[in-house]
């Protein structure tokens, strides 16, 4: 793995497995003796609340918080939540969005607005970022069951973002095996499918 400074800001909703993705990257860096600081924030809600994680790779003894305009990569597991992360995006950085809507009750009832993906694209452009969108409906199945979306996302991230300059696909696959020795087969399948996934701008 490469030891350049690389800061990742991850957002999503509690219950989506936001922290699992961060966990895999942290574990991989740690296994290769690369300095890493992983700072998750779960807020007050157990499920359905805003979750974020900040990952700083390559900096020895670094402070945990990424400054505004400082993240090389934003990973968003939910369309609307992307908007909370964009101020942290470095101009020229990448915003990777999983096209998943997790609607709050008021949105479901039609009494509150929900941003369109086009608005997210527009805001990403304003922040000077490059947008990648992974469709949520394209989730592959393994032995008749849909795979875990966060591992699938991990594959797409490794193929389409600058993360490929930090970690190799083999390193991430090894971490997945180590994290879930029992479910390795399913998860490695999800990862491999993610690597093949179509990601659009």
């Amino acid at each position: 793995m490469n030891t350049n400074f690389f800061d990742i800001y991850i957002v999503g909703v509690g219950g989506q497995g936001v922290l699992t993705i961060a966990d895999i990257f942290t574990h991989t860096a740690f296994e290769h003796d690369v300095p890493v600081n992983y700072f998750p924030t779960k807020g007050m809600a157990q499920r359905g609340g805003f979750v974020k994680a900040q990952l700083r790779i390559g900096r020895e003894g670094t402070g945990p918080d990424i400054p505004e305009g400082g993240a090389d990569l934003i990973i968003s597991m939910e369309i609307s939540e992307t908007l909370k992360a964009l101020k942290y995006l470095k101009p020229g950085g990448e915003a990777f969005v999983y096209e998943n809507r997790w609607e709050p009750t008021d949105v479901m009832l039609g009494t509150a607005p929900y941003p369109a993906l086009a608005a997210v694209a527009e805001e990403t452009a304003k922040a000077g970022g490059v947008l990648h969108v992974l469709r949520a409906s394209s989730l592959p199945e393994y032995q008749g069951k849909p795979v875990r979306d966060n591992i699938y996302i991990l594959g797409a991230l490794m193929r389409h973002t600058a993360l490929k300059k930090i970690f190799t696909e083999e390193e991430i696959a090894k971490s997945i095996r180590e994290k879930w020795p029992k479910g390795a087969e399913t998860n490695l399948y999800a990862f491999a499918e993610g690597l093949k996934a179509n990601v659009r701008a």
Partner: protein
Amino acid sequence: MISRKLISGNEAIAYGALAAGVKVVTGYPGTPSTETVAMLLKEDIPETKVEWSVNEKVAFEVAAGAALLGQRALCTMKMSGLNVAYDSLIGIAYSGCKGGLVIYVADDPGVSAGMCEQDTRGFAAMSDMPMLEPATVQECHDLTKYAFTLSETIGSPVFVRSVTSVAQSHGACEIAPRVIPPETAVPMERDITKYTKAGSVICINQHKRLIASLAQAQNQLEADGFDKLSLGKEGGVGILTVGVVNSYLPEAFHAVQPYGIVPEEITTLKLVHTIPFAEEKIKACIRHCSVLVVAEELEPHLENKVIQLCYQLGKSVKIIGKNDHTFSRSGYYEASQLIKGLFAAFAMELPEALQKKNNGAEKHCAARPISVCAGCPHRGTYMAINQAIANLHYKKDEVIVTGDIGCTILGMSAPFNTLWTEVAMGASTPLAQGFYYAGVQTPVISTIGDSTFFHAGITGIINAIQHGIPLTAIIMDNEWTAMTGMQVNPGTDIRCQKEGWKQLDIEKIVESLGVTALYVVDPYDLRTTTEAIEKSIQQDGVSVVLARRQCAIQAARRKITYPKVSVNSEKCTSCKVCIRKTGCPALELANGKVVINATQCNGCGICSQVCKFGAIETASV
């Protein structure tokens, strides 16, 4: 042997204590400090006593007892907990201790968990106690281990203070091997001049000893060389940082370098403690520099000391900090604050490229109000409170319902909008009593969770009972200290308590207090819960509704299942009343029809009780 692990700051504190041979570890759960005790409770370390105590004051007293007998003891809490523990803490600080006594407290600048943004360094200043402030996971381990030695050297308790970003960060940590504590304590001398506060002479002598012990800590810290001073260009710029802010310095220097600022020319002082003040090193900075940036989160403790020392030394130095409004007293810091301070120190404009460019994208984000989980028993209680108030023909804004700390406070949010106040652990009932005394003509209701009841709620209820206050106290007992991540408390199922521990029954406690109007209900049953609250409101004196049902998350983990609930699409009229009234995240709309998300739903059945069309059906068991 030293081992290298990927752990959190809170875990590193636990490992640091184990490496110091800690005998007793106590605490009360509180974000962001919880994982220290939580981790140790899972370890197989029979030589060390570990417990979640009933509250922070009790936790501290237990730890202090061990330290008076020469053992090493650690006590953990969040910043709000220190307010609770302080009464005993200052007493022990006066007496001093024999074994190392370390109080770990975690602050939350930027408020990620929802409480007062207080700076507990103020407590260190107020009680003449050293407070070590680790910046990284490794420092959490190293400084905790060291804190025990320092405590024994000065004969007084020592604080270790972290902030959310340090406590919750995960990183590589070199862990020193555990030291097994002695099995038996050293005999305690009976010395009332040391261990009581009987009389003015005793107290004044103890105070003098305490002041001297802080001075000794200052010398010891100076000698042990944790603070790093690096002198730059004479007459130039210096920067003083403390705790987590230290860790942003390399990043800030990296950012300012391209603009002609030379990091090597800047004097730096990186401190691992504010209190005691590192006076010699601070004075060296003052003598050496013409401008000093003082960067610390929250209150300007260090900065004010720098100003005082400048005055003492008769040297005029330009200070960049909070007094000149460069930095804020609120929020957490990262590299940007240091960058801003450095440009101000060099009297340079902050370059365009380094200015924050927030386009305000966040304002287009869908609001995501915090609420209770699918299947949460508290949902039933809030709905029943609202219904009872309506059934008794009061308007919603006529009946004050006070809230307390923990998951139970989530009733403040939509769709319930039940609770009016949140103050501190146990404050709900006394506050309601105050509303009654103030002359409110409508009923007053207080709500409180089980752990909060044991912590500090019980005293307020006793007070209301004694004084014959007509109020309804609703105890929402879900068996767990849930908000902080499911810790055991005195009311938790005996099967989840450690060996030799006991389970206390809130029902028996309340009965024994002389409450005759006590209604024990299941909040999954809206009708009986509502009726109980209605009856309760109409009683004289204190009445208690004990709403009991295990936390849905814990019930699921313990394989407790409820009958499956589903929507009969033929009967569903899409009126959406179920969604509107319960706000349950398991209820979703698919093509305008209500459906139940089977992965979220636990089968609590509350939604089926609000459907007038009987469209939400519970499978027969």
